[in-house]
């Protein structure tokens, strides 16, 4: 069979190039904007090359808002959340995938039901509960409630179903205890889905807005997206350079994580789709 003709091929590339420009340009604009002073950001035609105001914007932003503190809070919350989520979802997903026990289907059903509940329904009860624990302004108020979430458990279960049971049995015959089977065999073979879930969890927590806004009330405990959103309010002066510089900082960790785990990410997402 012959490959696609030159024309189809170049049309495809052209389309992809256009889509790339459309999706990359806003980020590029943000980056350039963060290096300009406020008066220059909206000049028409738009500036194409970065200028030198980035550090200036950041310094001014840091003087009015605790941006580094917020960055630290966001990193702490997202990293702890992601690691804990990965471990808990993996172990729960493994249990649902490879063990037979009484009430398994009911329990799995219950887990899935929590996925159907809209977030808003649980907001007020959750708020009361967390305030009751005295956790307002504490990172665990954001980390704990969403741990071992239904999607993660479901996602890991679907992926782990495809691990050959014979492998586990062989380990058992060799005398391995269950926990070390999980740690030494299951976790290493599940790297792609773990990477995918890790990126998803990290991004989700990194961009989490509603719950941190509500429960992290003082400025010292706040996270980066919440802090950035508070730089803009109707009827008040917006310091666009500072906002853009802050936003640039906020996407760097996600960018790094994604670039590091990219090759796992794609295979992990598709992993569960073969054997569902």
């Amino acid at each position, binding site marked *: 069979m012959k490959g696609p003709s030159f024309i189809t091929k170049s049309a495809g590339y052209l389309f992809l190039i256009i889509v790339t420009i459309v999706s990359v340009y806003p980020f590029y604009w943000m980056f350039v904007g963060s290096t300009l002073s*406020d*008066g220059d*950001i*909206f*000049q*028409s035609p738009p500036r194409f090359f970065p200028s030198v105001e980035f550090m200036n914007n950041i310094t001014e932003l840091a003087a*009015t808002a605790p941006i580094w503190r917020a960055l630290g809070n966001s990193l702490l919350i997202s990293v702890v959340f992601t690691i804990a989520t990965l471990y808990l979802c993996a172990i729960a997903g493994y249990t649902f995938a490879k063990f037979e026990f*009484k*009430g398994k289907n*009911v*329990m799995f059903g*219950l887990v899935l039901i929590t996925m159907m509940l809209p977030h808003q329904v649980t*907001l*007020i*009860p959750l*708020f*009361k*509960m967390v*305030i*009751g624990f005295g956790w*307002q302004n504490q990172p665990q108020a954001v980390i704990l409630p969403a741990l071992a979430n239904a999607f993660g458990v479901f996602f890991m279960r679907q992926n782990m179903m495809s691990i050959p049971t014979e492998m586990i049995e062989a380990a058992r015959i060799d005398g391995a205890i269950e926990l070390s089977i999980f740690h030494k065999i299951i976790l290493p073979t599940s790297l792609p889905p773990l990477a995918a879930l890790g990126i998803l969890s990290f991004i989700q927590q990194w961009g989490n807005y*509603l719950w941190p*806004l*509500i429960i992290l*009330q*003082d*400025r010292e405990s*706040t996270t980066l997206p*919440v*802090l950035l*959103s*508070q*730089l*803009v*309010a*109707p*009827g*008040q*002066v*917006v*310091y*666009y350079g500072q906002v853009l510089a802050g936003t640039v900082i906020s996407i760097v960790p996600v960018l790094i994580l994604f670039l590091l785990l990219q090759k796992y990410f794609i295979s992990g997402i598709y992993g569960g789709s073969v054997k569902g």
Partner: protein
Amino acid sequence: MKRFSVLLSLLVVLSIFLTACSGGKEKDGKASSTNETAGSTNEKATITVAAWNAAADALTEQIAGFNQKYPNIKVEILRADTGYTKVTPALAAGTGAPDVIQTQARDFQAFLQKFPDQFVDITDKTQKYKNDFVESSWKSVTKDNKVYALPWDLGPTALYYRIDLFEKAGIDVKSIQTWDEYIEAGKKLKEAIPGTAMTLYTDDFNLYEIFLNQMGGSYVKDGKINVNSPESKKALLLQKKMKDEGIAINVHDGNGRIPALTNDKVASVILPVWYAGTLSHSVEKQAGKWGIVPIPAFEKGGNTQANLGGSILAVSKQSKNADAAFKFIEYVLTTDEGQKIMLQYGLFPSYTPFYKSEVFNTEDKYFGMELYPFFAKLTTTIKGMEYGPIMLDATKPLKDMIDGVLTGNDVDKTMETTAESISKSTKLDVNK
């Protein structure tokens, strides 16, 4: 066997739910009982205040001055969002709310309606300030003759215009007395300077509200939805005319204004005092090119004042130190020291004794005039507006109404359907 386990798990879930609920109630009970006994300011007290953006910055700067007067009251400023996502769960749950809450003036009646018994009645304490605030500002903080908040800032509105562009087009700003003349001048400007429009509008109901307030109209009248009033129709038709004549361009939102202004796409804006700060910061290079005059009237000699925006400070009933909380809002809103800091952050006071102070009367470098005294003169005939308890639910219907009329839908019909849809979500009757 299978059915049994389903039942069992359901029971477990239910019991968890129930214990969670009952636990919450007990806590509330305790909280409200301590509420009544505490409150003396001689004791040490800590209060929390929720406000947004520059308003929160201003309040943070107030703490030092406040603590000189009241060293025992510790103040913490919480950063809220303008959509009230932060404070709403606490008000709904009856626990965890800050002691002092900022809302927009137009939203406060909706708060009083949605969260009855969540705000402290401060009628007695504010009686002595009755004449110290711009009269129209009391309307949104009063319900059934009881005062539940202190008015903070105001948004007296003016016409900001580009002196150089008006000159270039041969327009004398003094000749613009009515909106009709404004539109005519706009056409002239468009011909003289292609690519520059007279003014701009955004995808909200700001312009509509300015027109409505200018005519003395209101969203709610005598407790009934009033968006189908004759004033409402006039306001809608005026904005439609501006759009149809091509003298007003749509820039979608506040961010869209800046590029339009930077690149000389518009020659004037109809906006409140709070926009002066944005102009002098975001289009710094146009310093000296902007003049300010009162907005045109609907008919010659008519009212040229209108308000848009402004916020209030209220004390939450959940507060264990309600007296201390009131002391704080009293200090920041009814003293010259307090209002001086507010003004630095561009918050135009509704507290009028401050208008006599020195800081208030200094010249603004960007505009080359005494900015605030000019706007103070534009607060005298502002009409108090009845927002009613609808503003938290009416945002989308109002936007849709304006959008519908601008795209050419029948005005009367659109107003009717808007009134109905607001009525559905707020259970308020429609004024017939």
